[in-house]
């Protein structure tokens, strides 16, 4: 199952986001931006602190209920894929998403690079792709938010472009940020 696809430009701005799951709780548009910016930062940090020189940065972030896969292109655009931990052939899916992006965004004369993606054909073909690789999440999926996690430790109101600050005092560990930010059950 594929939950969401995000595209982050090389400056860390969110240029595309799409949720493919019904029944999962939604983020506010501000939270999407914060998630993208945070991931961008985490990605930059992880590539610096890696003991192996020339490391690519974070590629996958795993929790009990979902994984966030990240693929960075040579130009610095990042594709984020939020999927079921059991979702097979992520690499292939990622490559297909990149192809779709190259076809319907990069070759589209009305699409400015690094700007939010408004391309009807991209939407259509991405949806088609998601349907072929995993299908849309049915409303009765087991990950519908009802658990104790469900964005309870994330102050959703008045974040106003501020860095993510979980309202509890625990130092945020990586999966925590993601799971709380996404509002998915863990």
């Amino acid at each position, binding site marked *: 199952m594929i939950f969401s696809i995000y595209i982050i430009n090389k400056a860390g701005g969110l240029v595309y986001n799409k949720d493919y799951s019904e029944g999962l709780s939604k983020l506010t548009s501000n939270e999407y931006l914060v998630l993208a910016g945070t991931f961008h930062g985490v990605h930059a940090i992880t590539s610096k602190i890696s003991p192996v020189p020339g490391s690519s940065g974070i590629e996958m972030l795993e929790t009990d209920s979902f994984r966030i896969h990240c693929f960075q292109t*040579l130009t610095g655009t990042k594709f984020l894929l939020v999927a079921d931990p059991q979702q097979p052939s992520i690499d292939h899916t990622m*490559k297909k998403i*990149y*192809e779709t992006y*190259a*076809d*319907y965004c*990069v*070759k*589209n*004369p*009305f*699409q400015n690079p690094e700007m939010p993606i*408004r*391309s*009807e*054909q*991209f939407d259509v073909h991405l949806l088609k792709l998601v349907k072929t690789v995993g299908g849309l999440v049915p409303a009765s999926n087991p990950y519908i938010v009802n658990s104790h996690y469900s964005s309870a430790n994330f102050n959703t109101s008045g974040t106003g472009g501020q860095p993510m600050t979980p309202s509890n005092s625990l130092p945020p560990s990586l999966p925590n940020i993601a799971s709380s930010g996404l509002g998915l059950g863990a």
Partner: protein
Amino acid sequence: MSMAASLPNVGGYSSAASSLYPKRGMTNILDRPLNKTRGTEVSANAFAFMFSEMLQYTQKRVNGIQDLERKLNELGYRVGIRALDLLIWRDKNSKRETRVLGMLYFIHTTVWKTMFGKQADSLEKSTENEDEYMISDNDPIVSRFISVPKDVSQLNCGAFMAGIVEAIMDGCQFPSRVTAHTVPIDGYPLRTTILIKLDKEVIEREEHFK
């Protein structure tokens, strides 16, 4: 990661020919024989990128959508007039078309096949006007990767194709006005109809042949 190799091929276009560097023994494109067509197809992706740039370039230099379509038509005209010469040179036993139907059929089959790698999907005569004919393409290669935004929704990038057709009609002594229209049907949202409105003199001449 080489994108060019991983993208799907479209129509008769081959991405193998899209290599940036000429292979050893391969001749410069200008030195190749004109009448050899096999294996000399152009990458559809390269074309898509170029057409995209053409549109962006043109868009900066026009006022309004109609002006943009007119400019695209002009660009197509320049392509068409050259393509016509090439097609007639390549066709060993070509004869000069004198009748409208023969001419349109030539565009529908030969021209489309050479330029877009497939025949056009339909050739019809208008029921309302004697002097109007329509050639339709279900999935035109020029607008395959283009999503026209809402504020310029009247724009049809097929104006470029219309220009090509206009040049070929002109070059064969069938002066006409050619325009492109989006006529989506089930399963083919990009379907484009090229409307050919023949000049009066062509209709009069056609009457004499009867």
